[in-house]
C-alpha cells in the first residue's frame, strides 16, 4: 500500500522520517516511497530506457537512502533534493557502466499515461514549480540541461558533439542551473 502525501513536510519532519528510516521502520519506508517513488522511477525510465532498469534503480535508491540516512541533514537541503541526487548519481553511473552496450529501447515518459491520486497534491505542486522553472529557460538552455541531466552526457561530450568550446558549455550549464533553481524557489533574477 502506498502512503499518499498529506501536505509538504517540514525540515523537522523530514529529519524525523529519515531517523525512522534508519531504524528500519516499515511505516517510514512506505511514507518516503509514497512521496518520492514516482519521480525517482520516472528518472530511471528517462535515463536508462527500460521499465526493468527503472525498477532496479528505484530499489537501489531506497536501499542507498536507508544506508546513508544518518548523513541526511534537513538543515542543508530538502529530502527530495537528496533523494534525486542519489537517484541521478546511481542512474548515470549505471548508464556509464553500460556504455558500449546497446541502450534499451527508450521509453518516452511523456507517452506514459499519468495516474495521479487526488491526495498527491504536493508532488503535483512540486512538479508544476519544476516545470515552470524549466519553461523559464531559453530553448538552448533547456536542451543543454536535458542532454546533461536526462541523457547523462558530460560537458565534454556536448562540446564535442556541438563543436563549441568546453568552457562555453560549462558556463551555460551553470547559468541554466542557477536560473532554474531561482525560478523554482521563487528567487527570480
Amino acid at each position, binding site marked *: *500500500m502506498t502512503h499518499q502525501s498529506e501536505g509538504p513536510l517540514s525540515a523537522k519532519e523530514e529529519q524525523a522520517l529519515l*531517523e525512522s528510516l534508519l531504524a*528500519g521502520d*516499515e511505516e517510514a*519506508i*512506505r511514507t518516503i*516511497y509514497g512521496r518520492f*517513488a*514516482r*519521480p525517482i*522511477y*520516472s*528518472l530511471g*525510465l*528517462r535515463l536508462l530506457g527500460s*521499465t526493468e532498469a*527503472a*525498477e532496479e534503480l*528505484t*530499489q537501489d535508491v*531506497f*536501499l542507498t537512502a*536507508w544506508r546513508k540516512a*544518518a*548523513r541526511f*541533514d534537513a*538543515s*542543508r*537541503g*530538502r529530502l*527530495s*533534493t537528496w533523494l*534525486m*541526487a542519489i537517484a*541521478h*548519481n546511481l*542512474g*548515470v*553511473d549505471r548508464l556509464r557502466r553500460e556504455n558500449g552496450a546497446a541502450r534499451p529501447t527508450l521509453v518516452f*515518459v*511523456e507517452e*506514459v499515461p*499519468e*495516474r495521479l491520486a487526488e491526495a498527491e497534491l504536493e508532488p503535483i505542486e512540486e*512538479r508544476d514549480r*519544476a*516545470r515552470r522553472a524549466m519553461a523559464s529557460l531559453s530553448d538552448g538552455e533547456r536542451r543543454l540541461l536535458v542532454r*546533461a*541531466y*536526462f541523457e*547523462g552526457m*558530460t*560537458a565534454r561530450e556536448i562540446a564535442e558533439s556541438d563543436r563549441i568550446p568546453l568552457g562555453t558549455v*560549462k558556463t551555460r*550549464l*551553470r547559468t541554466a*542551473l*542557477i536560473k*532554474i*533553481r531561482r525560478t523554482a524557489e521563487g528567487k527570480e533574477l
Partner: protein
Amino acid sequence: MQRSASAVCVEIRERLTALALSEFPSEERAFVARHLEWCAGCRKEAEELEAAAAWVGLSAPQAEPPAELEDRVVRAIAAAAETRAPWRRRLRVLTVATAAALLLAVVGVGWGAAMFARVQSTERQAQEAARHSRQLVRHFQIVLNQFLGRQPKAGPRDQVRRSTLGPTAGHEGGAGALVFTSPGQEDWALVIMGGLASRDLPYHVTLQDRYGRFVEVGTVRRLSSDGSARTFRTFQGSLKGFTYVLVKDQAGRIVLSGDLGGSSVRVPG
C-alpha cells in the same frame, strides 16, 4: 609547494556543476566531498547546484511505478537490515564513553594528518605535529572520561557529531570538536584546540547554524604550556541545527573552522 585555501576553492568550484550533474565517477565525487566537509562557502554553492539539478529531475513527466515495487523495496531494506543487525547488536553493548573515545581518536588522527600536511617541509616539524596530535587525543580522553562517566546510557536518537577544525588563511592551529545531541538528555559540545597563537587571546568558540545564528561554547583566555586549550558546555536547548564550529580571535577574525554536518555518527545505546 602547497596551494592556498582559496586556490583550492577556485578549483573545486569549477567542478561543482559537473558534480551536480553526476559527471564524476564516485572516486572523484569523494575527493570533492572531502573538501566540502570543511569549506562552508563551496558547500553552499554545491548544495544550491544540487538543488537546481533536482528541480530538473522533478520537471519531467512522471510515470507510475508498478504496484508491487513498493513491497519489493520494503523487503529489500528489511533483508539488508537483517544482515546488518548482528553488528548493530554488538554496537549496542558499547557505552557512550567507548563510542566517544573511538570518535575522538578519529578526530585526533584527522587533526594530526591536517597538521602533517601543512608542515611536512621538515621532519622535526612533522614530529611536532604528531606529538600535538597525540596530546590532543589524550586531552579528549581525559575530559570525556570525566564527563561521560556521569552520563546515563545513550538513547536510540542520541547522536555525536564530530569535526576536525582547520585554520583559515593566514592562521595556524587546529582543533577537534564533538557535539552530542539527544532528545532525552542535555546536549553538549566539547572543543579542544592546539597550535594557537597566544598573542590573539582570548579566543571565542561558537557553534553556528546555516542561518548565521550562533551559540557560544566558551571563551579561551589562556593556553596551556603545550599551546592547547579546551572548552566544554552543556545546553538546555537543542544543538541539532548547528552545523559549523568556529574559533574566533580577540579581533573577531575566524582562525579555525570546521563542519559538523558531514560526519554524524549515531551513538550506540
